Every structure is written in C-alpha cells, then in structure tokens.
C-alpha cells in the first residue's frame, strides 16, 4: 500500500470556473464535458522540483537591472510569502513573474498596443522563496492597457505569477493587482472568481515595511497554495 496525503479541494467560489462568458476567450477554450473526478494518486501528490539551477545567475529578481539603462516608470518593490492553506511556508520554490512595461506594452510580438517599447525593460523575473517562504523582487509598476474583449476594455495593472509548490496539484498561475485600481470592477478576468474575498486576495497591499526610503514604494502580496491533510488517506 502506498497511501497518499491528498490535497484539499477548493472552497466553493474561491477559484474561477472554466467558462466565464464575459471573458470571451473562455467560450471556445473551456471544456464542455464534465471533468472526470478521480482520486489523487502518487502521480498528483508529487511534482517537479524545478528551477533551482535557473535562478541566481544575473539580476533575475531585479527587473530594472537587466539592461544598460534603467527602465522608465515608477520603481516598486514587491514582496510576500508563499504559504500553504495551513499557513506553513512553502520554502525554496520557484516563482516566475512577467509583466508589461510602464506604458502598458508587453515585449511580445503579438502585443499590438500603440504604446512604446522600453529598450531597458523585458518584464521577466524569477526567484526562489527562502526557507520562510519569502520572495522579493524589484520592478517598475506596470501600466494598464486596452484589449479587445469588449468595447473600451482595459486590463487593470497586474503582474503575472507562476508557482510550483510541493506537488503537481499545488501548481498555480495567477495575477497580482494593485490597490485602488479603478479598472478592477470592470475587469472580467479579475472578476472571474465568484467570492469577493477571494478576489480581494489578488490585490496587493501598499506596505510601508517593504517601501524603501529614497528608492521605491513597496507592495505586499502573499500567495497561498493548496494544502493537505496531516494523515494519509486509507485508499
């Protein structure tokens, strides 16, 4: 017997559904048949321990230091902790981030928004959490930008996050938003999660402790990955 300690299922409303009609791209890309529910096995409760050899070389946790000059925009520090649902830190796990520049333009061939590319900003960072699950990076505040989802549609400023955690089932890709952004109530992606408290947890908080004098404002964004029972299931 190889008992596994299963990871908890999401509380109702705390995760988006696949089909979210106001986000029009979901219409042709969300499954139409019911997902097949199955017990978690060793395959799902293990997962890649990945990226440890990919960080550390170069200023990957400082997106303002990846080119000859400094990028334009408001320099910020983003930090937080990666925890599981028991509040325990998730140490030494890979955090990948990407974002547009201060003008709202991604360095990507498919981004046709008529806003300037910043030759000093690529918008890509990665780091590992420390032993207490903490991460920190320096960047510039991303701009808002239009998209074609609906008339006069604008994405609120956001930074994309990708995290692994301990298992295949703890894998999380999400977006961090900024407090007080007037675009949040109208954004279908932000609003894809039904529970308003779950949405609010995607909004970083301005944080004096992270703010550095004469340098940059600080924002705090804690991330919680799926947790699991303390004892194995009998199955």
């Amino acid at each position, binding site marked *: 017997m190889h008992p596994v300690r299963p990871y908890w299922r999401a509380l109702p409303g705390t995760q988006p559904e*696949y089909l979210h009609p106001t986000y029009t791209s979901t219409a042709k890309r969300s499954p139409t048949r019911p997902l097949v529910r199955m017990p978690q096995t060793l395959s799902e409760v*293990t997962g890649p321990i990945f990226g440890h050899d990919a960080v550390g070389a170069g200023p990957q946790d400082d997106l303002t230091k990846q080119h000859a000059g400094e990028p334009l925009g408001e320099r910020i520090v983003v930090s937080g902790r990666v925890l599981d649902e028991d509040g325990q830190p998730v140490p030494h796990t890979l955090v990948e981030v990407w974002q547009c520049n201060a003008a709202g333009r991604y360095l990507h061939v498919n981004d046709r928004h008529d806003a300037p590319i910043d030759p000093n900003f690529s918008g890509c960072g990665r780091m590992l959490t420390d032993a207490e699950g903490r991460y920190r990076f320096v960047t510039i505040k991303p701009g808002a930008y239009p998209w074609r989802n609906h008339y006069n549609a604008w994405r609120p400023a956001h930074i994309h996050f990708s995290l692994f955690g301990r298992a295949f089932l703890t894998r999380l890709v999400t977006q961090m938003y900024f407090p007080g952004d007037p675009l949040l109530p109208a954004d279908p992606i932000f609003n894809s999660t039904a529970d308003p408290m779950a949405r609010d947890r995607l909004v970083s908080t301005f944080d004096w402790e992270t703010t550095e004098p004469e340098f940059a404002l600080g924002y705090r964004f804690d991330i919680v990955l799926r947790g699991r029972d303390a004892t194995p299931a009998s199955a």
Partner: protein
Amino acid sequence: MHLPATASQTVGPYFAIGLDALLRTDLAPADVPGRRVMIAGRVLDGDGAPVTDALLELWQANAEGKYAHPDDGQERAVDPRFQGFGRVSTDATGAFRFATIVPGRVPGPDGTLQAPHILVSVFMRGLLKQLVTRIYFPDDTANAGDPVLAFVPTERRGTLIARPEPAGGFTWNVILQGEDETVFFDF
C-alpha cells in the same frame, strides 16, 4: 488555521515573456535509461482552430516507476539526471512536441498499479485555471487494469491514449471541445 488557496488567473497571451526561458522539450538526457519516445500533437479549440498560444507542462516517473520527489516513498532509485518535468509551448500551427522516456508503473489507489502515464497541465489565454489530463501509451496491456482509466467513460478513454506513428513516435492531441473532447480531470 485555514487560509483559502489563492485564486488562479489565466496565463494570458504573453506568458512566453516569463516562462519560455525555462522550456524543457527534452526531458531525458541521452544516457538516462528507458525507452525513448517523441510525442507530438496539436491543441485545438472549440472551432477546431489551432491554439497557437498554449503551454503544456509534463510530469512523469522514471523508467523504474519512481518520481524524483521526496513524497515518493518507494524503495526504487531516483536518477539524478532525470527530473521528470517538461514544459513546451505550441507554435503558429498549434503544434507541440517533446522527447522523453516511457515511465514505469507507479502505485495507484488500494494497492493497484497504474499503467505508464504522463501527467499534463494545459495553460492558455482563455483558461482561467489549468486543465489536467494524462497521456497513456497504446498497446500497453496494463491500460486495461489502470485504476484511473477506470473512472473514464469507455468511449472517451481513447482521448488519453497516444497514437503510434508509422515513422516512429506518438501523436497525442488536446481537443478542448466537441465530439473528441479530451478528458480532463478534477481533483
């Protein structure tokens, strides 16, 4: 203490900026033991149109059926050269491909053994959270007794089984909607 897990959000159309640097299209260096295979396919949306901005991540055991992970308590050898993780993106035709070894059998629920399989997470613009599916190998007699395939309606199991190609390798597609919609799992 219970903190609800952070809500998932889509990777969006520009994930290549953040994630392409760590693509892993060849999971197994040449000296890793196991039967080497190439798996290729396409990702198609509800119109049958290619999804040109999808990302697939792969997770599998080594040829001995051991995961490179501390929670795999089996007394089998981990191969330090084989992490078991892959990450591939689709091209302008919606196509992807990766090279790996066929994994061994790993334990399933209630003392069963699972047939060789690769776990797949699918990310893309228009998916607010990843889809999770599996790749099985054709003509493996273990498929008939696989405890996970047993949860899948018989007529849909074929979507999880790769197809052998005459020239070698396997084809396995991700069909997001419709008659041949791929089976996706819920945990």
